[in-house]
């Protein structure tokens, strides 16, 4: 779940060479592992599976040594952009929403094992009719903060209001699937008295969704915060973004936008209904405005007073402090680390570089090792193995072009490929986001490409216009960096978005202008599959097939490091959001 803003933030973090994520936290670990000769071991990665009704039962498994009570202080750079769940589409906003919002489904994390379970629903959903119909049953005892029961009418209303014109920043998958056309033209939301016929509140506890096409991972989509429940009676439309009604373990008691936010217990939340959240603290105090270095310094020093009970969801260790933090053994117990769930690419503009041999030459010449060194060395990340991130279900480690074995690049092979293509001294315009770190990286890339026989032109682009520029179809650039995060951990929100040639348009995310009829047809075939396991396997295979056509160069999967106060326990890394989950946090005595 990542928005353009978050991607920009991720790009900025990449820029300062700090980031990453893994499946292991202070106490976590596990997942799939692999190794390579020169790239170092691929850090532990989480994989996601769909749970059963039993997995969906609350309460959440107790954390060893955890006790309820106390106040946690959380410091962040920015306030959470939205509180209305329908408007939430960032990893930071979604993470915070865990505290006050619940949806039909959600992710239960136990170490590196992540399971899609029923949150308000008794299970992760029942598909029928070949994936065209999905049925969810609400649990007993789920209530709003005012004590009223959460009903299927609330769920129906929550989905319908995502069509309203004032909701512009959330996800739009489900709206699109329900209408199968431009959803904004198809339906204006429930406020004028019109309702969707294919979202059926069958009885107070049963909600049914009917689609014209199969959607095998609809239950994953329903785990997005955008589709969390909003009270029909308590809906205040635009105002809901300021004061939402809580369905989660906490409620908002005070907020000064961009400065402070205070949460206290929602006494109508019943732990027995919730398999995801332990919700140990009595109170959360958020303070905003902390920049990377001051936040890191505060957390490094967090072993006395109020700082002991201070943490951050996403204030990753500033690049300038990373080696100090990694080299200080006394900080080890307070350091959470993880691998980024976001995929990292260097896009090749397939509209300008039409000869595949030239694209292959670029891939062979690409100096991944030197780039990583410029970003801060092996501690900053692993070399990407494919187009899909390892956290995506169905991920298959591929390394089609042997980059893991030779991350420093192979200029001789690149030269040979250029000769074969009849494109010796090929001109390449490399564009970069004009930040100090990217300036350094551009020098490394320029040097490597020249060595491989390319005629290189380096083009800086202003940070503010970066995404506008790279999302144009007719851009006068050949290679450029880009990141992408899956909205839920299957290939459905990665490969079709980035590589379906029919989506090419200004502003589209097919940044590389890649259009291959064979791939387009395969995307259609996979999307129509009703079995999610089969679908995930097919996405993994398609990843390799696309890579073989050389539309992009997989980059570095960055690592994420974050400190917390000495009395914070249960600070677990969320491998799907690149963030510290609040669900198991507790205060040590």
């Amino acid at each position: 779940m990542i928005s353009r803003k978050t991607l920009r933030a991720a790009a900025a973090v990449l820029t300062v060479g700090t980031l990453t994520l893994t499946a292991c936290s202070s106490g976590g670990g596990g997942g799939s592992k692999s190794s390579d000769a020169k790239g170092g071991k691929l850090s532990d990665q989480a994989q996601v599976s769909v749970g059963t009704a039993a997995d969906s039962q609350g309460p959440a498994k107790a954390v060893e040594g955890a006790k309820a009570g106390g106040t946690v202080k959380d410091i962040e750079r920015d306030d959470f952009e939205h509180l209305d769940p329908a408007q939430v589409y960032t990893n930071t906003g979604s993470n915070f929403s865990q505290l006050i919002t619940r949806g039909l489904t959600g992710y239960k994390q136990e170490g590196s094992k992540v399971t899609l379970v029923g949150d308000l629903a008794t299970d992760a959903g029942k598909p029928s009719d070949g994936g065209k119909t999905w049925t969810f049953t609400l649990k007993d005892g789920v209530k709003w903060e005012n004590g009223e029961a959460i009903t299927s009418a609330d769920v129906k209303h929550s989905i319908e209001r995502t069509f309203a014109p004032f909701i512009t920043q959330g996800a739009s998958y489900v709206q699109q699937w329900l209408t199968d056309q431009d959803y904004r033209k198809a339906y204006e939301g429930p406020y004028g008295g019109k309702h969707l016929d294919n979202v059926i509140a069958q009885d107070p506890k049963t909600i049914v969704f009917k689609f014209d096409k199969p959607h095998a991972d609809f239950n994953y989509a329903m785990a997005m915060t955008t589709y969390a429940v909003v009270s029909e009676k308590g809906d205040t439309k635009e105002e809901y973004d300021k004061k939402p009604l809580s369905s989660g373990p906490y409620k908002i008691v005070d907020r000064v936008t961009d400065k402070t936010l205070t949460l206290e217990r929602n006494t109508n939340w019943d732990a027995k209904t919730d398999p995801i959240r332990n919700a140990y603290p009595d109170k959360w105090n958020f303070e905003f405005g902390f920049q990377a270095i001051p936040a890191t310094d505060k957390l490094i020093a967090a072993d006395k007073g109020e700082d002991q009970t201070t943490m951050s969801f996403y204030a990753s260790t500033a690049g300038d402090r990373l080696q100090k933090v990694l080299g200080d053994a006394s900080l080890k117990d307070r350091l959470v680390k993880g691998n980024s769930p976001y995929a990292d690419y260097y896009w090749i503009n397939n509209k300008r570089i039409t000869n595949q041999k030239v694209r292959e030459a670029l891939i062979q010449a690409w100096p991944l090792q030197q780039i990583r060194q410029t970003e801060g060395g092996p501690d900053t990340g692993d070399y990407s193995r494919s187009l899909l991130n390892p956290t995506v279900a169905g991920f298959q480690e591929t390394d089609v072009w042997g980059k893991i074995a030779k991350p420093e690049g192979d200029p001789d092979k690149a030269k040979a490929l250029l000769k074969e293509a009849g494109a010796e001294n090929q001109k390449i315009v490399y564009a970069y986001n004009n930040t100090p770190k990217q300036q350094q990286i551009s020098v490394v890339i320029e040097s490597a490409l020249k060595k491989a026989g390319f005629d290189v032109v380096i083009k800086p682009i202003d940070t503010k216009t970066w995404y506008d520029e790279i999302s144009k179809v007719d851009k006068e650039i050949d290679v450029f960096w880009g990141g992408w995060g899956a909205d839920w951990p299957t290939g459905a929100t990665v490969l079709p978005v980035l590589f379906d040639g029919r989506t090419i348009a200004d502003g589209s995310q097919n940044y590389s202008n890649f259009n291959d009829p064979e791939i387009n047809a395969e995307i259609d075939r996979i999307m129509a599959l009703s079995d999610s396991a089969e679908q995930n396997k097919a996405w993994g295979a398609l990843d390799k097939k696309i890579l073989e056509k050389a539309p992009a160069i997989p980059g570095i999967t960055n690592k994420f490091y974050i400190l917390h106060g000495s009395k914070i326990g249960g600070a677990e890394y969320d491998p799907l959001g690149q963030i510290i989950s609040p669900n198991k946090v507790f205060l040590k005595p």
Partner: protein
Amino acid sequence: MFRFLVRRMLGAGAILLIISAITFCLFYAVPADPARSFCGKICSPTDLETVRTNLGMNEALPLQYWHWFVALFVGRTYPAWGDCAAPCLGYSFTNHEPVLATILDRFPTTISLTLGAAVVFLVLGVGAGMLAAHKQGSLLDKSASAISLTFSSMQIYFIGTLAMYFLVRQTGLLPEPHDGSITQDPAAWFSGLLLPWIVLALIFTANYTRMTRSSMIEQLSEDHVRTARAKGMPGRTVFLRYAWRGSLGQIITILGIDLGSLLGGAIITETTFNLHGIGRLSIDAVVDNDLPMLMAVVVVAAGLIVLFNIIVDAAYALIDPRIRLA
């Protein structure tokens, strides 16, 4: 005086109008499209159009400016946020709240920071400058000059960061800077601003010391001061009545400019100490491409500088009878 003030106020209004128009054109001419940031990750042309309508950005630039200007007097209604009462400075693209409300929320922090620091640097700076002038050539004078030269060469981001590291993080001698309300919790307000006041005072005191010293030495060498001394007027009276009063004009001039700038946005100070004032707001607005907020901050900052210029001119007239206001 009244005519003078009216004339200056009208001039100030015209200046602000020109500044706002130029700022509007400059900021909206940036090729980055804020509507794209507002649109979802996968944004269709219809979505983009909806967002542009919600933000009031689907009209020609002159029309957008006209709506912005008119809203100052009659308010405006936004599809995504509802009514914005006059004087409406728009809605923030980032926090989705009325810009005016945010500015009013941030202003007390900036006022507290500025006025508190001003008290410290005026008392210390002017006092040290007077002493140095009085003891011209002494060790005290030389020390004051050396210290003032040293601190006036330093920057807030340097001293502030060092002070934070040693006085707050390492030793805990001073409390962590934070926003506070003087009416709700005076002690917390004072402790939260203590370090920023000290750091600001270190830098500004030096300027006032040097300026007061040189100005008073200059005044002491004036003919009328020599005459007063020759007539047997006591040295203390000469020092305070003539030299000090003669220097006051310069002090007020500099103070007016400093207060206007600090109130308009102590950007680095507020960022260094994580204070949520107007300066910090302007930086956040630039980073977030929050054009309505940026417009408002620029206009407010410019307004404050213009206002303090008027105050300085008026104060001149009160202090120095030689100045005539036409």
